[in-house]
Structures are given as C-alpha cells and as structure tokens.
C-alpha cells in the first residue's frame, strides 16, 4: 500500500506543478504584460482560471496531508529547517488567492483595484519562486541538523545559488505554462499572437533558467548534470524533453492550442520525471548523508493502509468532478460573453 501512497504523492506534485503552476503563471504573465493589454489579460485569466483555481491549489493540501500522515519525519524536518521559505511561500499564497478574488468581488471598481493587482501579480511571482527554492533546498544536501548557528541551520540551506536558481526556473515554468494555456483560450487573433509570443519568450526563459540550474549545481559542487546525462533513463527523458521543444514551437506557430498544451505539459512532466527518477526514493537530501527517503521515513502499518484507502476513495469523488469542472469551463459560455 505504500506504493499507492507514493504514487498519489507523485501525481499530486505533478498536478500541482502543472495546474497550480499555470495558475501562478497567469499572474506572472500579467506582470510582464504591457499596461494597455493588462485589462485584457485580467479578463481572460478571470474567465479561464476563475472557476478552477481553488481546485488547482488543493493539490498542495493533498501533498501536505500525505507528507504528515505518511512521512512524518519528512514533514517535520521540512517544517523545521525550511521554516522561513515556507512562511514566505504561505504569505504569497495568502496574498495571491485573496487578491484574485477580492479584485473581482469588490462591488466598487476604483483605485483599490490597483492594490489588488499589485498584490496578485507580485505574489504570483513570489509563491512559485519560494516553492522552487524549497524544492532546491530539499535536493541540494545543504540541510544540516548538526550545524550550530541560526544562519547555518535555518538560512543557509535555502539561500544557496542552486536553490535560488531552482526558484527562478520554477517561476519560468509557471509563466511558460500559463502563456501556452492562455494563448489557446484567447479568441481575439491579435491578442492571441501576443500570448503566443510570450509563450515563446517564456519557453526560452525556461530553457535558459534550466541551464542556470545546472550551472548553479556545478558551482555549488553538485554533480547533477553529469549524473543526469550518464544515467541512460534520465538521459533519454531529457532528450525527449529537448526534442519536444521543436514540436512545441511548431504547434505554437500553427496555433494548435490543444497540441501546444499537451507538449508543454509533457516537457514539464519529463523534467520532473528525470529529477524524480534520479533522486527516488530520497525526498530530503541531508548534509550528513542521513537522507530521508520515501521508504525509511514512511509510517508503517495501519496509518499507511488507511491513508491509501482514503486517497483511493477520495480520488473516485475528486477526479471525475474535477475533470468535469475543467471541461465545463473550457467551452465558451452560451449566450453571454
């Protein structure tokens, strides 16, 4: 049953990155949109993401619950050593969610809108940035429980060059996913071109920041790149991801919305898969080598069995209704704009 739980954990992480990521990305796209088109972006974001965004963020809750029920030492270690970036990420989540809803439901549309927009766009940037930093800190091996000073214990692990570059990489991924997604939803030909252009730019940014991650790993003394390309499986995955870049640009040029989304999702899935394959079963790489893995940190017996059943039962309810929700709001509303 442990494998069922692990499968749900991996699925939730992937879906959070893809769906939640595209969601954060909408704010990032708004941030880099020229002011004359911003209102347009906002309307499109509201129409396409409004109905589904709360559901997209539930994956994070599922991840957290799986961690604290199934892998309590991991949850506890993350909470202790990455307390500060987690808090900053939470501030982002609070700011973003509330500003997104408030700006729509404020009955009077006045200068307050600018405040909401400001909070929404910047927290859309900050949240994935810290999520990335946390992910980077989890695999960099900088978490050192034996350290003595406040800085070494609670600050150094997540302020490494590597962690920060993973943060930047995550922000690019989110923006990229959102631009691809939004370009397919826009009906105005001119504005669609703008989104496609952004999708291309953000795709380039993703590739560059991906390279930055490898470079940062090298500088920080992690042999990540060598390990990924000398291992046949991860090498194949990375090659597939790189080749699909050509497909992506082709579909973007041809304005094939569904195919572009599929390829963009594929690329991000491949990146996560390569990293997942490389590090599995380790989840939290520790400085002293006592890594916390999905096996050695797992609860045993009934907690895992009941968690697995709860997840299976939950997904029977959640997945069909979630797909129906996303499907329903993909169609143009009938009779009203």
């Amino acid at each position: 049953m442990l494998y069922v739980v692990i499968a749900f954990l991996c699925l939730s992480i992937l879906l959070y990155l893809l769906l939640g990521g595209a969601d954060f990305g909408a704010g990032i796209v708004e941030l880099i949109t020229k002011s004359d088109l911003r209102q347009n972006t906002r309307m499109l974001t509201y129409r396409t993401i409004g109905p589904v965004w709360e559901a997209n963020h539930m994956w994070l809750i599922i991840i957290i619950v799986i961690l604290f029920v199934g892998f309590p030492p991991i949850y506890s270690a993350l909470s202790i050593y990455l307390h500060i970036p987690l808090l900053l990420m939470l501030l982002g989540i609070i700011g973003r969610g509330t500003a997104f809803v408030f700006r729509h439901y404020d009955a009077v549309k006045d200068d307050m809108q600018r405040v909401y927009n400001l909070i929404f766009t910047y927290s859309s940037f900050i949240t994935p940035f810290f999520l990335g930093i946390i992910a980077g800190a989890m695999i960099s091996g900088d978490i050192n429980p034996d350290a003595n000073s406040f800085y070494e214990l609670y600050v150094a692990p997540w302020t490494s060059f590597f962690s920060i570059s993973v943060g930047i990489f995550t922000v690019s991924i989110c923006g990229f996913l959102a631009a691809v997604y939004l370009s397919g939803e826009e009906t105005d030909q001119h504005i669609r071109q703008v989104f496609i252009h952004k999708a291309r730019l953000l795709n380039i940014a993703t590739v560059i920041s991906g390279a930055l991650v490898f470079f940062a790993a090298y500088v920080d003394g992690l042999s990540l790149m060598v390990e990924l390309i000398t291992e046949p499986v991860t090498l194949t995955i990375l090659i597939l991801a790189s080749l699909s870049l050509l497909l992506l640009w082709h579909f973007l040029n041809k304005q094939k919305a569904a195919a572009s989304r599929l390829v963009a999702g594929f690329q991000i899935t491949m990146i996560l898969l390569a990293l997942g394959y490389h590090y599995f079963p380790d989840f939290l790489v520790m400085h002293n080598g006592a890594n916390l893995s999905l096996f050695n940190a797992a609860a045993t017996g009934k907690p895992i069995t009941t968690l697995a059943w709860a997840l299976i039962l939950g997904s029977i309810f959640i997945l069909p209704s979630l797909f129906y929700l996303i499907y329903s709001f993909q169609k143009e509303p009938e009779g009203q704009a």
Partner: protein
Amino acid sequence: MDDLMAARSQMALSLGFHIIFACIGMVMPFFMATSHYFYLKTGDLNHKNLTKAWSKGVAIFFVTGAVSGTMLSFELGLLWPTFMEHAGPIFGMPFSLEGTAFFIEAIAIGFFLYGWDRFNPWFHWITGLIVGISGLASGILVVAANGWMNSPAGFDYVDGKYINIDPIAAMFNDAWFTQALHMTIAAFVATGFAVAGIHALMLLKGRNVAFHIKAFKIAIIFGGVAAIVQPISGDLSAKDIAKRQPAKLAAMESHFETTKRAPLLIGGIPDEKNKSVDYAIEIPGALSFLAHGDFDATVKGLDQIPEENHPPVLVTHLAFQVMVLCGMIMVGLGLLYFFAAWKKRDWISKRWFLMLFIAATPLGFIAVEAGWTVTEVGRQPWILYGYIKTSEAVTPMPGITYSFVVFSLVYLSLSAIVIFLLYRQIKMVPELYTDHGNHSKKPTEPIQ
C-alpha cells in the same frame, strides 16, 4: 515574549481567524441553497438576487477561509513539528478525508459561482448544496482531529513509542461526537445571527425591504433553531468533559476543591493564588447535577490534579462565562423571533425589535471564539492530553515572535479588507438589486 508563547499566540490567532471564515463557509451555502430553492420554485426575483448577493459574500469568505486553512496545515508543522511527527500518522485519518471534502468543496464552488445560466438550474442548485455539505464534513473532520488531542485514542504508548496505531479508532475518539455536534450547531448560530443582524440593520434603514426581510428570515430561522437546541449539546459536552478532562471542567468552573454537591458559579473572578472566587453567584449542587446528573455527586476539583498540570483558570473560566452568556442571550432572541412570527407579525417592522438583532450580530462569533478558548486553553499544559506537553512540541527554531508579528499584521489587514469589501457589497445592494414589485414585467438583470 518567549518562543513558546509566540508560537501559542500565532496558533491561537490563526485558528481564531480561520474559524470565523470556516463557519461562514460551512453555513452560508445552506442559506443560499434555501433562497435559491425558493427562487427556482416560485421564480421570485428577490430570492434570486439574494442568492447572488450572498454568493458574492461567500466567495470573499471562502477564499479567505481557504488560504487561512492552507496556512494552518503548514503551521501545524512550522510551530509544532515534534507533535506532528508523532501525531501525524495517528490522527491523520480525518485530515486525509478532510482533504477530499475540501477538494470537493472547491470544485463545487467553481460550479456554483460561475455556473449561473450555464447548467441545468437544478444541477446548479445541487452544486451549491454540495458546497455546504462538503464544508460541513470538513468542519466535522477537523474537529474530530481536535477531539483526538483532547481525548487521545487509537495507539499504545510503550517506552516512549507510539505503537499499535489505529487511525480509525483515533478518529472516532471519545470527544469527537460531542465536540463536532457542538461546533456544527455553533456555526449555524453564529452565522445565522451575524447575517440576520446585518439584514436587520438594512431593514432599519428601510431600503430594499422585500429583499432584506427575506434574507433576515432565512438567517434567523436557521440561527434561532440552532441557538435553541445548542444548550442540549452543551450539556452533553459538559458531562463528557467531566468524565474525560476533569481539569478542564474545574478550570471552566473555577472549582478549586473537590466537593460533593458542588455549586455552579455564575460570573466571578477566580483568584488562582488563594484558590478562591470573588463576586460569583453560586447555585448549590447545580455543577454536580450538570456534570453527573445528580445534585449530590462529587465533582473533582483542581486540588486533585498536580499543580504543573493545571490549565490557566482565569482565562478558561472567563471564556466559559462569556460563551454561556452569549448563548443564553441568543436562545432568548431565537424564542422572541419565533413568538413574533407566531403571534406578533408586526414586530418585525418595529425599531426596538430590529435593534435587538442588530446588537446581537457579533454574539455568535464571540461565543465561538470563547468556546474554542475554553477547549484549547483548558487543555493546557498539554498539546496531546496526558501524553505530550505543549512546551515539548514547539519548534526548535528561535525567533517565532517575528513570525507572530508578521502574521498578526497579515490577519489584521485581511480582516480590515474583508470588512471593507462586505461594506461595499452591502452598500451596492440598492443599485444592484432594486425592488421588483411587479414580477410580470421583465426586470433588468443585475450587473455581474
């Protein structure tokens, strides 16, 4: 402020903030579904407008509840990592089910808020109802988890290790039912009276009377019924606590010495040093009766509990008094409303009548906050009653005071914005939903 106190304050603040939004998120969908039902059945546009107006409020409250709930799921670990490391696998069951319920709620609210004129009207109505049902389920599950902290079950503690873990037994601990029942009813009382109070204020101003009177009635009927039945659930809780957590009951009642025929104290200020209570009204034997169903029964006092395990008496006692007082006032108002609805129909347009309900607007939420204070402070010094002390569970990271200050500011500004938004929503009611006296004439749709 030391780190433990800062961590406790931050947790109290976060929970105290979240509970308001959780209550509204749990209960408002039922008010909306009721109003929505009348609209679908009769085609009355006031009910349609009311449903839409409420749904905007709910969207604002739901998102605030959702983000503060997300925050809490992290805060459990950020502030109490040692507790979570042991407790996670044991009391994780309600949380994993709650994850599902919360997820379904988020999906259903997407359908409901964005689904006007898109779906079959009754499918749309059902999605609104599902928001309420899954919200209620979430609430009950989280309270069951809290129940486990008061009444640990589903494991054996041997040589410092938690073994033979049974998450199902942990979820159905002895406290879950009484706590969940009391909280669910409380959510209806609090939301009912708060909503009724706001609409009573609008009625007093005399604008959109047909609209606000429908709103007032739906809210006060839910709230009033809940307030009237709440004392029964309160009695169940008191008897349960007397059995399981005598220290908490003793603190609630400032009952320092074990006695037969123990008196019930009304009001009063406990003096923890001299183990006495000043200015209280005593009802002889009433505490014995309420706790054990017998006027002559012995009620355990704080003297039988080691001093280091005493909860703070003053806070617990005062919070309990506040909760009961608010509850009693609302019972009275509930009865008054039903009497008026039965015999004195014209009272609803009377100033004094409306003023009473306006004054009662915050009472339900004050009672909820006071009640949680009793539950949580009354459990101290334990985080897991009888097993782990709160001081042993706190994070080793220093400087929690800073995070407490930051989050106080965040929650303060969020509260201010939510009140501001609500004020604006209400102010816009006359413009968005004018009275449609003549239903045969096709009215203009309210602006989205």
